[in-house]
């Protein structure tokens, strides 16, 4: 076990990536993830085989990632919302060419240039595709600096295992926050990559990294095959935390910084005798549908707490399948819902469900 160190979330991601054997990083400056890029700029040139490059744009950065991923090596890029929009073309190509890579989005408020304060308003972009075509990313959402490190490690492992890009969907608070963190032990990819373009050495037929299939029959087949892999991910890789759900009558669904505030709100409400619990998705794709669906069998209603105009709430509604009312408790544009707001919205839900019995 390594000892705990005090770190910023952005730095924890960088250190965890290095420890996961990621020696290639390409980025372009943007707030609020700059510490990550700076950490890599400092460390990688001093690391054997390490490559740090500040690309000319996020478009170039993701395509450099595409190049390294094609050789089978672990590689990462990071950005924040406007920059991640620019990466979408490249992400679609990574997905279409079945290349593992890790993309970090330390989200800020939007749309447009938006602001630099924390947000979760890229949820749709991250979980529903983002770029063109049929594809998904594995999307992991840290809720502590410890998870910034752990989920970065996991993102590399899952990306390799399923030959797919994976995204760490953080927010500005997570990126800037300092907390003690136990860093993951150094490890590397355990997955063989016979498809990689490393040079034939005149010993095998050439490998081709490609997403073009002009025959619709063949292209359809690649899509179906990819979705079989997605089905396996949905079956085996759903992760979430269930907090005080055993006796809960109301369920808050929240991830990232929103989940932390929600826990404080639950403590406050429990003191008042209100039985409220939390489902915290750790993977938002795959979304913990079954957990929400099961909760719907016993709770009376859901509150989706989000730093957006209400995006995850659509997945909550799909999962609980109209069994219970689902209400939104949100702030947007870089604002964070507070404990009072969550308590108030939850109480209002109770009143409407129980007809003012409380």
């Amino acid at each position: 076990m390594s000892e705990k160190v005090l770190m910023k979330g952005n730095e924890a991601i960088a250190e965890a990536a290095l420890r996961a054997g990621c020696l290639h990083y390409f980025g372009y400056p943007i707030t609020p993830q700059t510490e990550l890029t700076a950490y890599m700029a400092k460390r990688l040139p001093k690391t054997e085989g390490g490559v740090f490059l500040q690309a000319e744009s996020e478009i170039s950065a993701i395509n450099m990632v595409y190049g390294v991923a094609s050789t089978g090596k672990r590689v990462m890029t990071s950005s924040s919302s406007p920059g991640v929009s620019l990466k979408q073309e490249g992400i679609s190509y990574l997905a279409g060419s079945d290349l593992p890579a890790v993309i970090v989005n330390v989200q800020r408020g939007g749309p447009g240039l938006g602001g630099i304060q924390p947000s979760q308003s890229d949820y749709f972009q991250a979980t529903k595709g983002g770029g063109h075509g049929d594809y998904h990313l594995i999307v992991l959402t840290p809720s502590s600096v410890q998870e910034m490190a752990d989920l970065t490690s996991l993102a590399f492992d899952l990306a390799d295992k399923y030959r797919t890009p994976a995204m760490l969907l953080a927010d500005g608070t997570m990126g800037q926050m300092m907390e003690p963190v136990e860093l993951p032990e150094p490890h590397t990819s355990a997955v063989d990559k016979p498809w990689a373009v490393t040079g034939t050495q005149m010993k095998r037929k050439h490998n081709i990294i490609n997403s073009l299939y002009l025959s619709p029959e063949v292209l359809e087949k690649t899509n179906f095959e990819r979705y079989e892999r997605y089905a396996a991910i949905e079956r085996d890789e759903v992760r979430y935390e269930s907090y005080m759900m055993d006796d809960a009558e109301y369920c808050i669904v929240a991830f990232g910084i929103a989940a932390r505030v929600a826990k404080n709100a639950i403590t406050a409400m429990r003191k008042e005798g209100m039985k409220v619990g939390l489902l915290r998705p750790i993977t938002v794709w795959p979304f913990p549908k079954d957990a929400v669906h099961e909760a719907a069998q016993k709770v009376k209603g859901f509150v989706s707490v989000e730093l957006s105009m209400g995006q995850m709430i659509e997945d909550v509604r799909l999962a609980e399948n109209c069994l219970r009312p689902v209400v939104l408790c949100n702030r947007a544009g870089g604002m964070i819902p507070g404990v009072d707001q969550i308590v108030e919205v939850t109480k209002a839900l109770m009143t409407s469900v129980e007809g003012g019995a409380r």
Partner: protein
Amino acid sequence: MAVVFQKPKSLTDKELHYCPGCPHGIIHRLVAEAIDTLGIEGRTIGVAPVGCAVMAYDYFSCDMVEAAHGRAPAVATGLKRSIPGNVVFTYQGDGDLASIGMAETVHAATRNENITIIFVNNAIYGMTGGQMAPTSLPGQITQTSPYGRNLETQGYPIRVCEMLSALDAPYYIERVAVNNVKNVLKAKKAVERAFRNQIEGKGFSLIEVVSACPTNWGLTPRKALEWVDERMIPYYPLGVYRDKDAGIGCTPLSMQTFKKEG
């Protein structure tokens, strides 16, 4: 009987899809011959563009990567930085390299990225059916400049070699053509030189090949080759624009060189 002419080893047996009389076939051959001559097929990675040459990944027998439109130099940067001992080349059209991918091109050049770029300038968007390219000539009629390229509203053609050789960093830049035997022989030397530079760790080498697109120029293959002489080459003069070895086209700062891993 002695074999006097055969297909280069580093081309596959796949039949090329290019139009009859299209110079892409010749240019593929020049690239493959260079790879064969230098004996580097086993460690060469090619990057195909989006354009008529998109399926180049099927034609070269080395490992291949298909890049998004214009992004080949960035993809090549990743490939080269990942395994510096490999030889990485891109093969790009004018829309790919000089329009949508201009930023990637300029920045790979200014990093003196140790890669080889084969830039095929046919002054038109071939694959999409003949639209105006950044290199379309003044007055050139295309699908999107039906009244002829209007310099006032549609801008001037970009001379890529001249532009890139204004940078301090790039090592080698040459413009060649493949419209007659003499030019093909010169082009062959240039392409080989561009690969050798990379192997020797010298850095960024770009060979612009003034090509033709008989199909979208609306000319017979023979007439298209004449048009190259009459219209293209006067606007895009052939020659070496930067050669740090020979001190050609060098800016004061450009003589400073850094040995790259080749």
